[in-house]
C-alpha cells in the first residue's frame, strides 16, 4: 500500500530476525512482494502476500511471490484461524481505517503479529510540526493533502493502544537510519517494529 518499492527497507532485517526458518507467513499490504521474496530467500518461509493495487499484484507475480488481491479493510475472511506462524503488516498500519480490527484479525489468523510503522514522535517530525508544517521525510514521503496515512501514531501511542486492549507485546525494535535505538525511542526512533501476540 504505502511500501517503498524496490530497495530493501530498513525494517525488513528487523522483521526477519524474529521469523523462524521455514515459517508460514502472511504479509498484509505486501507491496511488490520484496519482503516476502527476502524472507523466502533468507529464511526459507512459505506464505502469501495480500495486496490491493494492480501494479503491485503484477510486481509480486514477477517477484515469484504468491499474492492474493484483496482489500485489508474488508478483513481477512479468506484465511482461517491460526493458519500462519506470523502475520506481518509493514508500513501499512498507519493507512488502515480500522486499526483495531486489523490487529485482531492478525491475531486470529496468525500465532503472532509483526507491525512496523513510522514513529510520529521522532524528533525530526516534532521539529517540522514546531516549524508549523506536517512532517515530510523518507519514512513519511507524502504531503498532507495526498497522504494515505490517516492513523499516524507514536511509539508511546501504540504501546498504550496494545496495553488497553490486552495485546501482548513480545519484542520491540526501534530504528533510525537502519540502526537500532535503545534510549528515548519515542524521541530518537524513526521506525518502530513490534512483535506481538503469542
Amino acid at each position: 500500500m504505502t511500501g517503498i518499492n524496490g530497495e530493501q527497507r530498513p525494517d525488513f532485517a528487523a522483521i526477519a530476525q524474529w521469523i523462524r526458518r521455514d515459517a508460514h507467513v502472511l504479509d498484509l499490504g505486501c507491496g511488490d512482494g520484496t519482503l516476502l521474496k527476502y524472507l523466502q530467500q533468507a529464511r526459507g518461509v512459505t506464505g502469501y502476500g495480500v495486496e490491493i493495487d494492480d501494479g503491485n499484484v503484477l510486481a509480486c507475480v514477477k517477484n515469484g511471490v504468491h499474492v492474493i488481491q484483496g482489500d485489508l479493510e474488508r478483513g481477512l475472511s479468506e484465511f482461517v484461524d491460526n493458519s500462519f506462524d506470523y502475520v506481518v503488516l509493514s508500513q501499512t498500519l498507519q493507512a488502515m481505517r480500522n486499526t483495531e480490527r486489523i490487529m485482531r484479525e492478525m491475531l486470529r489468523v496468525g500465532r503472532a503479529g509483526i507491525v512496523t510503522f513510522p514513529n510520529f514522535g521522532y524528533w525530526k517530525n516534532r521539529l517540522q510540526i514546531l516549524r508549523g508544517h506536517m512532517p515530510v521525510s523518507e519514512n513519511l514521503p507524502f504531503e498532507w493533502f495526498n497522504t494515505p496515512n490517516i492513523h499516524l501514531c507514536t511509539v508511546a501511542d501504540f504501546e498504550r493502544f496494545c496495553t488497553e486492549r490486552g495485546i501482548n507485546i513480545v519484542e520491540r525494535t526501534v530504528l533510525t537510519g537502519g540502526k537500532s535505538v535503545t534510549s528515548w525511542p519515542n524521541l530518537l526512533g524513526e521506525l518502530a517494529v513490534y512483535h506481538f501476540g503469542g
Partner: protein
Amino acid sequence: MTPARKLRGFFMAATKTRTQDLAHSVGNVVPQAAHFTEPLLLRCGRVLRDYELVYETYGTLNADRSNAVLVCHALNASHHVAGVYADDPDNVGWWDNMIGPGKPLDTSRYFVIGVNNLGGCHGSTGPLSVDPDTGRRWGGEFPVVTVEDWVDAQARLADQLGIAQFAAVMGGSLGAMQALAWAIRYPQRLRHSVVIACAPNLSAQNIAFNEVARQAIITDPDFNGGNYQVQGVAPKRGLRVARMVGHITYLSDDEMASKFGRQLKHGKLNYTFDTEFQIESYLRHQGNKFADYFDANTYLRITKALDYFDPAFEYDGNLTQALKSVAAGVLVISFTTDWRFSPERSREIVRALLDNRARVTYAEIDAPHGHDAFLLDDVRYHRLVAAYFERVHQEIAP
C-alpha cells in the same frame, strides 16, 4: 477430409473477425485428429468404446517435453484457439489475443494445445458422429458428458503426444473448470493451473439459465428427442433462444447499457413485435448466427457438464477437502463485473487452496465487460498472465 475441416465453415461464423497482427500470430494452422480405441468409462456409467479428438498445436515441444500448455475451451468454442486457416484467413482462433509469439502465452516458448471436447460439434466424437455399434449418427443417444470425462480424454491425448506433465493447463469459464479438474485429478501431470472467470460449481441462478436454454431447445418441435438429423431438420428456433439467454448473462448490466442503452433500431417506435431496440437486434443476430453453426445436442450436453461440475459434492460440500490433492501452482483470475461467475465464487476456490497451503495467486481485474472479459483485451489482465507464464518459463528452463 477430416470432420474438423468439414465443420470449419460452420465455425467460421462463430469467431469474430479481428484485425490480425501478423507478427504476433501463430499464422496458418492445421487441425489434427487423434484416434482412441481404449474404451473410456464416463461418469454417467456409459462407455465410449472408440472415439476421436480433434486438436491443434502451436509452437514447438522442447526436448524434455516440459513446455506444453493445454488450453481448454468453454461453452461454444473449439480446438481452434489461435491462428487462422490458409484457406479461411478470417477464421481467427477464439483466444488469439492471448496466444501467439510475444503474446501472454508465448508460442515461441510454449507448445500450446487446443482440443475440441468429447460431445462437441467441431470434429471430436459427439452427437454428429457415427456410433460404431449402430452405424448411425449418435444424435440424441450420445451420452451425457462431464468436465471430468473431458479431462480424462484430454489426459489420453497427452499420453498419445508423449506429454507426461504439462507446464500448465489453462482455461476461462467452463475451460477453467477443466483446468481446476486437472489439478484435482492429475496432480502430478501439470505444474500450473490457470483458472480464469471460474466458479467451484454453478449457483442455482446459473443452473436456472441453463435450464431455460435447454427447455428452449427440447421443446422446439424440430427437436424430435434429439434425433432431428435423420429427419433433416434442426431445432434452430430453440437454439436461437438458448443463445440469446446466454448472451444476456455474458455481459454486465453497465456494458449492455453503454453498448445499446435504449437505442432504437429504426430511429422511431413502430408499436409492433419486430425489433424496436438495438439490444433486440443484437440478441437476434447472435442467436441466428449461433443456430446456423452449432449443434443443439452438443449445446444441451455442454450446459449439463456445467451444471454437474462440483468437485466438493463428493466431500459433503467441503471444497478444501476436494482440493486437497492439488499440487500445482494455481493462478486464479476473476473480473469485477462478472455476475455469472462472480469474484466471490473465485474467492471460494482461493480460500480452499489457501486452507491447503497450495501455491495460489489471485487477481481480481476491474473490467467493465462482465463474464466476456476473459476473452477480451485488457492490459492488466494480459500483463498478469504474461508475468505468470514468464515465471513458469523460468521454472521449466533447464
